[in-house]
């Protein structure tokens, strides 16, 4: 049906501040099973969410919701009480890496970190801590993960998504929305859309997502959206050549970006002549990926890639 998350996924939120509250409400309205919050200074309290669902009027789905979320001191306590397997992190940057490591120590399957601005050194430590553990990290500095109609974890607008056949993986938030919107318009829809984030040190990478989508029987094609900086797209291209059995379309942002300048994302920088859009585009094309010349053509590129392989 999908990868990483589905309608049975139980989710806790780490950080019930203003941002955490806002997006928890949106997730519940979408239909996500939010089951608990972790916020040490508010442990023992509850947070009430109520309103109209995104799918009011749809047969067999509730029109409204009222959820009283319990708040716990630790991730372990939240899991023990709820059986959650996934968390989403809205903790502020200085404390976010610690929240990720706490989620991993508690044995969650997946932690999605939305927080932007985490010090690189903190993420270097967190990644080293996660390496021997089973927990998968998505992010940080990402919009999150969504399986349309089933489960939305993160800050993406839910309504642009439509359940379908294409897996989406992207380093950029708004470009993911562009791709999703176009896939919905051309009638392909999405199995799952994963934002892997714009930081130089992140968890799940392109290859992890390609592998997941390659193994998912309901995913019939993948669109990957990269940008300047690092060599993750080149590595993904090599993996596609060796292992990918499904059509892949792509887009790379930053053809006009000047070298040595950080383009908004901490990870989007051409340094020492490495990480240019031209290198990434040619690597992907050499791997048989249909690379869209502009973001407006991403949906069409996916259609073309699927026609080529059928």
């Amino acid at each position, binding site marked *: 049906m999908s990868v990483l998350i589905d309608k049975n996924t139980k989710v806790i939120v780490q950080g019930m501040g203003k941002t955490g509250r806002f997006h928890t409400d949106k997730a519940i309205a979408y239909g996500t099973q939010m089951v608990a919050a972790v916020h040490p200074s508010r442990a023992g309290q509850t947070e009430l969410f109520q309103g109209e669902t995104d799918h009011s009027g749809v047969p067999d789905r509730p029109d409204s919701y009222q959820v009283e979320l319990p708040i716990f001191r630790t991730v372990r306590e939240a899991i023990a009480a709820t059986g959650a397997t996934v968390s989403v992190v809205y903790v502020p940057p200085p404390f976010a890496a610690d929240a990720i490591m706490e989620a991993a120590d508690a044995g969650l399957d997946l932690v999605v970190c939305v927080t932007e601005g985490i010090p*690189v050194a903190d993420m270097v*430590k967190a990644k080293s801590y996660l390496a021997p553990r089973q927990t998968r990290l998505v992010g940080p500095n990402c919009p999150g993960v969504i399986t349309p109609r089933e489960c939305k974890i993160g800050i993406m607008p839910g309504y642009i998504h439509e359940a379908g056949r294409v897996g989406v993986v992207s380093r950029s938030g*708004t*470009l993911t929305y562009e791709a999703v919107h176009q896939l919905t318009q051309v009638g392909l829809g999405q199995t799952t859309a994963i934002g892997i984030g714009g930081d130089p040190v992140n968890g799940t990478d392109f290859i992890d997502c390609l592998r997941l989508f390659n193994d998912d029987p309901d995913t019939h094609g993948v669109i990957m959206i990269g*940008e300047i900086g*690092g060599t993750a797209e080149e590595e993904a291209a090599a993996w596609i050549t060796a292992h990918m059995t499904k059509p892949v379309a792509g887009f790379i942002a930053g053809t006009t970006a000047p070298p*040595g*300048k950080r383009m908004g994302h901490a990870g989007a920088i051409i340094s020492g002549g490495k990480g240019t859009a031209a290198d990434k585009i040619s690597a992907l094309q050499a791997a048989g990926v249909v690379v869209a010349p*502009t973001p407006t053509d991403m949906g069409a590129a996916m259609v073309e890639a699927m026609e080529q392989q059928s």
Partner: protein
Amino acid sequence: MKIHEFQAKELMRARGIPVPQGTAVTSVAEAVKAVAPLIEATGNPVVVVKAQIHAGGRGKGRFIEEPELGGVSVVTEGRDGGVEAAKTKVGDLAARMLDGTLVTVQTGPEGKPVRRLYIEQGVDIDRELYLSVLLDRASSRNVVMASTEGGTEIEQVAEETPEKILREEIDPGLGLLDFQARQLAYGLGLEGMAFKNGVRFIKTLAEAAVELDTDLIEINPLVVTKEGAVVALDGKMSFEANALYRHPEVQDMRDLSEENAAEIEASGYDLSFIKLDGTIGCMVNGAGLAMATMDIIKYVGGQPANFLDVGGGAEKDQVAAAFKIITRDPNVKGIFVNIFGGIMKCDTIAQGIVDAVDEVGLDMPLVVRLEGTNVDLGKQILDESGLNILSAADMKDGAQKILEATKS
């Protein structure tokens, strides 16, 4: 965030990393005054005058005003003529370099104004090596890179003789281990005293990188003297922006005069802005979409004037500030606003645009492409505003429309 060489050397000196003695100066008088104490303290009659700008390649760089003059000059007059001769030469150089414009491979053709010099002790060089600490994105760890090819651009070494680059990963829990520092020192061909000093230098530098949250420390060249001393002849440091909050002493070293004024102003409004050379201004939400907007302007045949990400929750005053910053650039002939509303609703941004145009005024074409949450409401606000705003169906359409509108 970048700092000057003299500041990087201050930070190294404070951590026990050997650097030559030196004094930063901003006037000819200060430059002359710095010479005698330096020669007395070191016993070396040779001093070096180095332009302090935030760009590499200073030695090979040249001043626009005086094409024969480089950004680094070695003053040897003190050998025969004594301190007075050295002072005269330093004074002469300082007068020519201060307020000059230095062009290097990293400054672009317009160059950078030189406002400060570093007067430094001369060093008797036996060998020139290369040493740096930086993030390796593939392994998600910091690495120490070393090479025997000091004084050359490391990118060139990586291209031509990659086998001459040595690497050791720094374990985030354990730090750089002793044997790793030894392996690097052996690889650099260090022996005797130089080996001992080299190992200590490498270990201390790796510790400094972690302690200071640098995203790059580069010592090029790292020099070995005939006596076996290992000294940082040059020193470049830049810092990871997300970690600056825990290093107030480093924040104090920020030199705003080295940065673009519009970029500084934009950062005050939480706008991510980078100035470019084209004629079409862009205002976009999201870093990836902002880059892609520049790309599509180029794709249809135009040239983007800037990168501008207003972020996910832009308010009216941010939109107004963005317009002001974009339109102040005399090259800009038109503006392309490209918004995919998610959490930020299209009607909010549309109202922000209308209010900002009312406030700032606009005497150039404006194309707006809206998509996403409340898009119809947003378009309605723009249509009913009575402002001369061209509406675009999608990104490509918007890019073509602004190009067309700015051609006439």
